[in-house]
């Protein structure tokens, strides 16, 4: 910094004292942090957590096995297996895999579903120790989510 010696002394003393007093005043303020995991934040409704397949009133899955979500996923995290039962024309879902290790939680699958059969829950604590446990299937999709 190009300034004269005495100017520097004056700026120096005044800024140092102001900085010290300001940091002391913050020492007396209330902290703003939450102590996770004892206290958890309130999550917004629209939060895009892990995936859940919806069921209707009779307990059946709403999914019509059209394959839109599988096609649109940018990370190829969804895989589904369908079958056509005897004598019916419409396809049904036999197995549904969501790999949470690949999923980027973007929400495009939820947007693209024509019957609103898939949604995001607000669960974000999905960490596992083994990679295989990250792949959710039809039976664990319901149990893992709140």
């Amino acid at each position, binding site marked *: 910094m190009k300034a004269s010696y005495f100017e520097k*002394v004056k700026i120096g003393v005044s800024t140092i004292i102001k900085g010290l007093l300001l940091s002391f005043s913050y*020492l007396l303020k209330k902290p703003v942090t939450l102590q996770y995991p004892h206290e958890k934040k309130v999550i917004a409704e629209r939060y895009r957590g892990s995936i859940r397949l919806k069921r209707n009133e009779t307990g059946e899955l709403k999914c019509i096995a059209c394959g839109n979500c599988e096609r649109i996923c940018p990370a190829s995290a969804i895989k589904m297996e369908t079958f056509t039962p005897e004598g019916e024309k419409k396809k049904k879902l036999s197995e549904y895999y969501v790999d949470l290790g690949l999923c980027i939680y973007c929400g495009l699958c939820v947007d693209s579903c024509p019957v609103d059969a898939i949604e995001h829950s607000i669960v974000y604590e999905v960490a596992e120790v083994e990679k295989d446990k990250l792949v959710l299937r039809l039976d664990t999709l319901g149990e893992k989510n709140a």
Partner: protein
Amino acid sequence: MAALTGSIFFNIILSIIGVMAVFTINALFAVWLERKVSAHIQLRLGPMEVGFHGAIQSAADGIKLIGKEIITPQGVDKKLFPLAPYLVFFPSLLMFVVIPFSEKLQVQDLNIGLLYFFSISCIATIGIFMAGWASNNKYSLMGAVRSIAQSIAYEIPIILSILGVIIIAQSLKLSDIVARQDIWFLVLQPVAFIIYIIAAIAELNRTPFDIPEAESELVAGFHTEYSGMRFAIFFMAEYTNMFLVAAMATTLFLGGWRGPILPPVVWFFIKTYAIVFLIIWVRWAFPRLRPDQLMNFCWKFLIPLALLNLLVTTFVLKLF
């Protein structure tokens, strides 16, 4: 302890126990204080899990560090590398000898107590250079070289600033200096106090003078290659030095153990930890200086100011 019990043997045992106790408790307490003060300045809470508000966090960290693997890299100097942490650490223990914790609690009341204190503290510089050189690492060497330049340069303002105190007290004996402080020397020598604190922070290698151990600069510092217990020793040496520098500041400027009502030892620790708090507070408020600005600051600002202070002190003393 010279006057505490009759026999020399018991005096020595008591001194050793006393110094080890102070040193251990200080290591635990000062680290906890630093973490809590820094956390509250930054609007967060600091350690809370272990013990009541994290009181035994330092002990837990110490146990963790003892359990870590001691890695010795390949090309290091086999004799100097393990020796360096201890050379940085032992002078701190030696410096406890002259500190007057109260009237009777002083290990040895040397005639040249002040001179002894500042001479022993220079030995730590050799330890730092040994650590940097023996590490066989470009960055450690650069960190160590900068640290030596800084340590040697800042010795001078420290000595010059306490010369004023010595002239007023007319003695190098620490118990005499405390005895003559009917008015605290802080009132008589305010400029010297400020110079002493600034130069002491530089000697401790703490922000804003912590270029040698800067983590976010390009060089990683002289203690990079050390792990586990050896790193713990460097760490403890820094906090012990902080306590010793603060203890010397209370003895010289704040009236030592003198004070009403409470027992002298308690006053001593209160004043010492107030200075420790000041040193911690300065660390978290400011960025660090560039090495050449650091040297400029010492030679062009602190030393002229200290000399001026000395001149004015002798002038005033001669007149009155």
